[in-house]
């Protein structure tokens, strides 16, 4: 009787799926009647038990925090950008949070330049106050650039993964808004002597510009080249790695 029971039947019997009630009953009867079939079924059970014994893949402790950091800028409501007058644009610039970003960079820049100038005029006597100001400026810059890179990563991820024309339109606008900030941060990083960060931010700029200048909705074709570029380079990884490094540095300085 068991010659009619194949391994496939035993697998379906094990999962109680894909067999009708009469076939299940047949297999059950065959198992009761045949030691050889029982051994085959036991071998199957042993194999699956070994699979069950594998440790389940678990995320690391920072997974949820990292996940949310990356998701948050992507799900934030993005009002559509409309043509605005220069006065409106100026008002927008003077309102938080963009003004806060720019102000923070200017503070970082001013503190950095001031400290640099002070150190040049009195090379043997750096004061404690200027050292504190220097550390504070670096901390502020790190925090804002890390936030900027989070937003940049969200833009890259959306560009790389989404086929939704509506979403890509919003993404284009967000990319456009990041270009200016990116330049500002690159400048601030260069002035603060962090040439590595400045170079990296300059490397991102053409990608952001390319994203900002993509054609409007209707076709996903323009995204393909960019996707291929993102998939074939480690830019996304570098954005994440730099962001993580800045966050670590910020925490270390606190």
């Amino acid at each position, binding site marked *: 009787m068991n010659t009619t029971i*194949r*391994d*496939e039947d035993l*697998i*379906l019997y094990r*999962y109680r*799926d*894909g067999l009708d009630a009469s076939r299940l009953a047949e297999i059950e009867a065959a198992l009761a009647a045949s030691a050889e079939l029982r051994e*085959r079924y036991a*071998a*199957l059970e*042993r*194999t*699956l038990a*070994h*699979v069950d*014994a*594998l440790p*389940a*893949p*678990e*995320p690391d402790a920072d*997974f*949820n925090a*990292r*996940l*949310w950091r*990356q*998701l*948050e800028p*992507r*799900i*934030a*409501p993005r009002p559509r950008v409309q043509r605005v007058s220069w006065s409106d644009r100026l008002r927008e610039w003077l309102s938080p949070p963009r003004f806060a970003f720019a102000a923070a960079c200017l503070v970082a820049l001013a503190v950095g330049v001031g400290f640099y100038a002070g150190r040049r005029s009195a090379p043997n006597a750096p004061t404690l106050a200027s050292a504190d100001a220097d550390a504070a400026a670096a901390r502020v810059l790190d925090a804002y650039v890390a936030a900027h890179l989070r937003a940049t990563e969200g833009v890259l*991820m*959306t560009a790389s*993964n989404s086929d*939704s024309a509506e*979403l890509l339109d919003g993404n284009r606008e967000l990319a456009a808004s990041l270009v200016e900030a990116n330049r500002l941060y690159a400048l601030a990083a260069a002035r603060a002597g962090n040439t590595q960060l400045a170079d990296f931010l300059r490397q991102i700029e053409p990608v952001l510009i390319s994203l900002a200048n993509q054609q409007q909705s209707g076709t996903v074709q323009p995204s393909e080249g960019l996707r291929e570029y993102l*998939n074939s380079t480690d830019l996304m990884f570098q954005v994440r790695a730099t962001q993580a490094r800045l966050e670590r540095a910020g925490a270390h300085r606190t």
Partner: protein
Amino acid sequence: MANDEARWVAQASAGDAAAFRHLVETHSSALFRVCARITGDKALAEDAVQEALFNAYRHLREFDGRSAFSTWLHRIAVNAALEQMRKRNRVEDALPEGEEGHEVYENAFDAPAGPDRHATSAEIRRDIERELSRMSTIERTAFVLKHHEGQSLEDISATLSLSISASKQAIFRAVRKLRAALDPLDIEG
């Protein structure tokens, strides 16, 4: 519990980021596990989870509550994991032909088992992991969905866009490969 979740979903759907964060934190580990089992790569799994949650957020209003929210999320996550694999050119366009596959398994069954084979659980684990990594993405995914996720053949077929028969064959191949890797002499067809 279900009512609580329905409330969180409704709030998230209305744009409440905190409610969505609650849903993320509730389900992210389970999503990571299924994605990691499918991709065999923690970094890819993390990307898949992020994409899945982002897609889920965009389509929250379309969740009609007919299935459990976790079921809905898992389906999105499985698709995101497959998409990640596709991007890495690891997904086969189609299942291998049956005849060709049978030859492989028959050869595997004939392979002699060494006397010291599977002496330790670490070796068994290595063998299983190696075999899982060698499987086609379709085979591994069908097996993961059946064995670890407990999904029905119908659901697996819908997720993988395969016929039920093709889904069964994928699971059969996966199980038989595992058996062949662990104990070739155990199996007689």
